[in-house]
């Protein structure tokens, strides 16, 4: 029996991605046109790549047709993840308050129902300075906040769900160009799936990190074992033919969604094959002691 798995000539390492429990919410942003919905959503999910320094991880989930939104207008759904409900609540207030409330023609609704909720419009309403109007429609409260182009309509609360952050896999390629090409294929495939986001720029991370640093106070630093330029100086995990490593990080609302995203993403990355310089697929973990969720590559790809 072969000790390793291969897809299209690409070696799949017998390793796992280590992921962590998070709290998440889904927000539906609608506007007069998709253009303005994307303006708000892109601004709101900017600087939301990692909880290490951004407070939350967020990205667009998918585009919504008018028939899929509460007010019948074009929209976008956004997922936000954070390490605690309290931090998630703070991020929602800041991001919706500064990026959606401010964006012309937009409205914002909860896209998740759950027993646990966080304030959405219930806090933002105070911007109305007493002129805000509450409407209770079908058991849910909405706030109408007067703004200069009319009204900002915002649901009172948004549902919060348990979620998982940090699902990942690494693409090891001979050159940066080939690595990017495979990563782009993976991101394109994963973006078609619901309940998951890839919070890093373009869905791809080049600066994978390890826990700790030689510098006091830095919680994370470069994952030196996977950096091709310092192969001789550290205990490298890269072979002689690997010239670039790119990571896809996936946050999801549940275990199954992340498994599916990793499966689809790895298959897409491997579709380029060893002939186009993709040599290995690996995954990032911390020895299995930090995160309770282990996504084993061989199990996922069976």
């Amino acid at each position: 029996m072969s000790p390793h798995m291969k897809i299209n000539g690409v070696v799949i390492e017998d390793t796992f991605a280590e992921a962590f429990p998070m709290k998440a919410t889904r927000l539906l942003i609608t506007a007069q046109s998709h253009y303005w919905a994307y303006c708000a959503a892109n601004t709101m999910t900017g600087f939301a790549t990692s909880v290490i320094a951004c407070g939350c991880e967020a990205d667009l989930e998918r585009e919504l047709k008018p028939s899929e939104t509460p007010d019948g207008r074009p929209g976008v759904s956004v997922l936000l993840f954070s390490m605690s409900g309290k931090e998630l609540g703070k991020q929602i207030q800041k991001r919706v308050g500064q990026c959606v409330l401010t964006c012309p023609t937009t409205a914002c609704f909860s896209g998740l129902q759950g027993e646990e909720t966080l304030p959405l419009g219930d806090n933002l309403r105070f911007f109305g300075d007493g002129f805000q109007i509450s409407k209770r429609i079908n058991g849910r409260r909405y706030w109408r906040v007067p703004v200069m182009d009319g009204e900002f309509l915002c649901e009172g609360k948004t549902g919060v769900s348990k979620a998982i952050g940090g699902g990942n896999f690494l693409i090891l390629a001979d050159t940066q160009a080939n690595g990017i090409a495979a990563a782009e294929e993976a991101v394109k495939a994963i973006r078609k799936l619901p309940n998951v986001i890839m919070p890093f720029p373009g869905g791809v991370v080049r600066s994978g990190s390890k826990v700790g640093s030689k510098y006091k106070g830095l919680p994370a630093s470069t994952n030196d074992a996977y950096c091709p330029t310092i192969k001789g100086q550290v205990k490298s995990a890269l072979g002689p033919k690997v010239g670039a490593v790119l990571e896809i990080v996936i946050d999801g609302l549940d275990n199954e969604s992340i498994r599916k995203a990793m499966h689809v993403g790895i298959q897409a990355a491997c579709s380029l094959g060893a002939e186009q310089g993709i040599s290995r697929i690996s995954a990032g973990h911390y020895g299995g002691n930090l995160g309770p969720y282990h996504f084993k590559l061989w199990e996922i790809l069976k």
Partner: protein
Amino acid sequence: MNGPILTLKEIPDSRVDMSPLTPDALRGTDLEQIAAIALRCGGRKVTTSELFGIEGEPGPDIEIRESCERLEGIGSRMTKGEIRVVGKAGAYLGQDMKGGVITVKGDAGLWAGAGMRGGRIEILGNAGDYLGAVRIGEQQGMRGGTILVIGNAGDRLGERMRRGSIIVQGNGGSYAGANMLAGTLIVMGHLGSCAGFGMRRGTIVTPGMLGDLLPSFSDCGILDLGFLSLMFRELANHGPRYGFLKELSSLTRRFAGDAGVGGKGEILVLQ
């Protein structure tokens, strides 16, 4: 429908308090027990079987046939189930109801939906004065739920209403939404004079046939208010009778008031 059919034998000489006959009270009873339920008729008590012929099966839902305006308080305080009234319904239809559905295939009397907190009342004919309005001695009118009137509604509909929705497909009387505290009043036909008199908050919506608008309302211009689309779509989900709401525009001329009482309510004239 799962429950007894009560057919009025003859028009009673006095008003009958129908509040003991609710789906909540009938749950788990058989026809004999239903027949023995005491109803107040004027100054005396009568059994249900003295006033009604009872047929059908035991069950929580009720159909009242040959109904007349002397049958008052139908569905009072009900929390679930369904009451179907064939004929007229007297005053205080569905007062203080918290859930369930009442359908009247005829007209309803005064104060239908007074004190209502939840559920739905659908009146396929006309509604009398004080629809969903405050009762004498109380501070608030309707506090939740939805009332649909296919015909016209009388004066002072929605007076001091606090929450919920009233939808009138026909015309509304004068002083609609007077002293309104919150909630939504939609009148598809002609809205009578002095609409929104003394309103503090809340929304009155009409497609255009506004009577005399009080001078204490300010014209805010034509606006596209997104909450209208949301509200119309949600109300339309109640069933085919509400389907016309889906066709309404969210483009509206907004009049804010009543400034006479420092109010922050609104009359929205759909464009």
